[in-house]
């Protein structure tokens, strides 16, 4: 209700507004308002500190964004079906610690330890997410409660797993996934781009993607149209779980250590990325493109403010205000004519 409709990168709405006519700068600005807001922010930071606009810094930002951005792609799906997942941070920690545990303690040195860890982390995440999905569809417990429960259960399990301590001692091939490059692009960024592209294509061009929108738009109508609603819901939670596991693997590779406290607070950052990107928490509207912009906005903000040497306390105030301003601007640009 009051969480007014936010549609920005909704494919359905956007195309309707664009009959092929000659270039209209205002319409262009309206359509790309979120990107423009982001560019404005980047320009401001760049003007204040020239270091901000370096490739190295851009890679810094993207590396940081990658970790939660990967999960945000999955969260786009979850929010599209009208669900929510607050367990992602805990599941990330559990999956990555489980993988690190197996690799360092059970398997021991091996040339493919990275592959084992990648596989285990993703599969553990997938399994955890599948359990969430089943609890939602089968026990009919609201997603918020299921994943809130999951949040404490996985965190507790993580702490039990290695008695609260971190696990480190990964080999170079493992670490490469966090610190290496693929053609000058740091590995986590490359994985992120891959996940985002795949997430976008599936949502936009496949039947599965259509069904995700349908379930979020009107679950009962979707069921009566032959959509296997329970399958869609369960699969979406399983996918975000797998992405949390993947992200956990990358984070542990980046830090050189899998920690029990990893990912704490990620849930809010990830959900914020999706909602800033224009998705509605009631489901049915949103898209991966918007989510990327939302995630980038958060990344640029926290990087830019540190580079500008804004004090930590003050940063929080500024970040909060700019996020609200960005969404208010988005609404204004969408509803007001020239």
């Amino acid at each position, binding site marked *: 209700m009051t969480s007014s409709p936010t549609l920005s990168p909704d494919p359905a*709405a956007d195309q309707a507004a664009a009959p092929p006519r000659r270039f209209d700068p205002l319409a262009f600005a309206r359509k790309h308002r979120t990107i423009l807001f982001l560019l404005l922010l980047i320009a401001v930071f760049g003007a204040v500190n020239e270091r901000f606009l370096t490739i190295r810094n851009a890679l810094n930002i993207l590396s940081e964004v990658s970790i939660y951005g990967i999960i945000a792609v999955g969260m786009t799906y979850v929010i599209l079906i009208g669900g929510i997942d607050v367990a992602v941070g805990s599941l990330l920690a559990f999956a990555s610690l489980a993988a690190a545990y197996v690799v360092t303690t059970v398997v021991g040195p091996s040339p493919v330890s990275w592959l084992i860890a990648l596989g285990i982390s993703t599969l553990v995440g997938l399994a955890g997410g599948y359990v969430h999905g089943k609890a939602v569809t089968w026990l009919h417990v609201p997603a918020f409660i299921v994943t809130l429960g999951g949040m404490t259960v996985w965190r507790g399990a993580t702490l039990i797993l290695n008695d609260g301590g971190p696990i480190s001692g990964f080999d170079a091939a493992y670490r490469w996934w966090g610190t290496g490059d693929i053609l000058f692009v740091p590995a986590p960024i490359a994985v992120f781009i891959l996940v985002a592209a795949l997430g976008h294509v599936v949502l936009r061009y496949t*039947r599965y993607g259509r069904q995700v*929108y349908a379930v979020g*738009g*009107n679950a009962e109508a979707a*069921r*009566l*149209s032959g959509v*296997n609603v329970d399958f869609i819901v369960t699969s979406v939670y399983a996918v975000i779980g797998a992405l949390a596991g993947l992200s956990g693997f990358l984070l542990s590779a980046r830090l050189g250590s899998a920690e029990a406290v990893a990912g704490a607070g990620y849930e809010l950052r990830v959900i914020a990325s999706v909602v800033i990107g224009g998705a509605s928490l009631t489901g*049915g509207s949103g898209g991966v493109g918007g989510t990327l912009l939302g995630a980038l906005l958060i990344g640029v903000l926290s990087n830019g403010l540190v580079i500008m040497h804004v004090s930590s306390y003050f940063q929080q105030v500024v970040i909060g205000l700019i996020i609200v301003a960005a969404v208010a601007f988005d609404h204004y640009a969408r509803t007001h004519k020239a």
Partner: protein
Amino acid sequence: MTLLNVSQVSKSFPGVRALDRVRLEVGRGEVHALLGENGAGKSTLIKILSAAHAPDEGVVAFDGQPLDPRDTPLRRQRLGIATIYQEFNLFPELSVAENMYLGREPKRLGLVDWRRLRADAAALLGELGLPLDPGAPVSRLTVAEQQMVEIAKAMTLNARLIIMDEPTAALSSREVDRLHAIIADLKARGVSVIYVSHRLAEVKAMCDRYTVMRDGRYVASGDVADVEIDDMVRLMVGRSVEFVRRARSGPPGPVVLKVETVTPKRPRLAAPGYLKDVCLEVRAGEIVGLAGLVGAGRTDLARLIFGADAIASGSIRLDDKPLKLKSPRDAIRAGVMMVPEDRKQQGCFLDHSIRRNLSLPSLKPLSRLGQWIDERAERDLVETYRQKLRVKMASQETPIGKLSGGNQQKVLLGRSMALAPRVLIVDEPTRGIDIGAKAEVHQVLSEFAAQGVAILVISSELAEVMAVSDRIVVFREGVVVADLDGETATEEGLMAYMATGVGRASPPGMEHRPL
């Protein structure tokens, strides 16, 4: 003496000019019919009267005073204008009584007096002859019952003008009669009524004056007594519409759908297993109409056949093979499709485009590897059904929520037809559809049957059931009480079965009345 005077009112939405310098005059104690095709602008005009929308230009005068276009809906209510909207405005989690008196609850010591609230509501419902429990939450009511609550709510306002936007679309004849009695009573007390309906026989029977709109413009107005139904149709549609009983295209084919002593596992509502041991057959190329009063169980049966609800006992056979249905998905795969009765709750994805709404169940054959959607083929499919059903829309990408109700209904029909099912169940297929479009829908159903599809039509409009059906099955309180030949059935005969379960000998040669 005029009570309401609308002049030169215009209203545009992005891309649509919904109203173009419209006028309307309503006298005191007059029942005024507002007529027009789907999308003519009737509901938009009504929303301007109730201040749900602000007009772009023009004046609305009530009781001789021009009204402030910036009024809130609450102020208009206080002035004495009550509105029953086409789309319901009820609060599903609140009880019937609370919905009726929201914001005007009786109080004691400053607090809501629940006892009196319940008593007042019960008294009014009794007066109106509506058998509803004032304490029941609205979410448990059927569409028809919800419509009754809307009517009762308007009555609590003591208004001088009551606007009813298609109040009978969801009602069956018994409830319609009751509503007409209510309106007659209002009229006797000097209250004016604006009445929107696509059922012209009703208009002819009980309205005093009419105003016709077409494409957002005023066309004509006058005394109902001076015109025939055909004249009204011509004014609305710009041509005359032939409304004929369907002629069977040939001998019926083999039995396609066979329902044998079916009883539902859990009734949709909290009543003890209402539908009981139902048997039914539909042949290829045959249209079977289901008649019954509101709550007779026709929708429940449709949902069972479609796999939307579970069966406790009995069986459903398709082409003489038993159907095991766990969900509508199984039914669709087997070739059974249904158009649900509540298009807003069960049919439409309101924010999504027409294209996405229409193609959803048919995507599989349009996709490579079953997943990769061929958008060109999809567009072609949507275009085919747009033409076939004459859907009025700006583009395939328009959100379906922006269409008029009738056009939404056509999109949903298109959704089902695009699947090319063996069995098609349509529940209230022309609810809220204008007369021209209704004839088109009947035509389309006939053509579909001619291709060998077995069709079940549920309609609360007897005339419609009689016009399209080869056979009519009558339900009463969850049991089949009659199975009649469509050509010899009469409205009186059907009514008798529906109300009492026993037929009355119908006078031979009785002509069928036009709609």
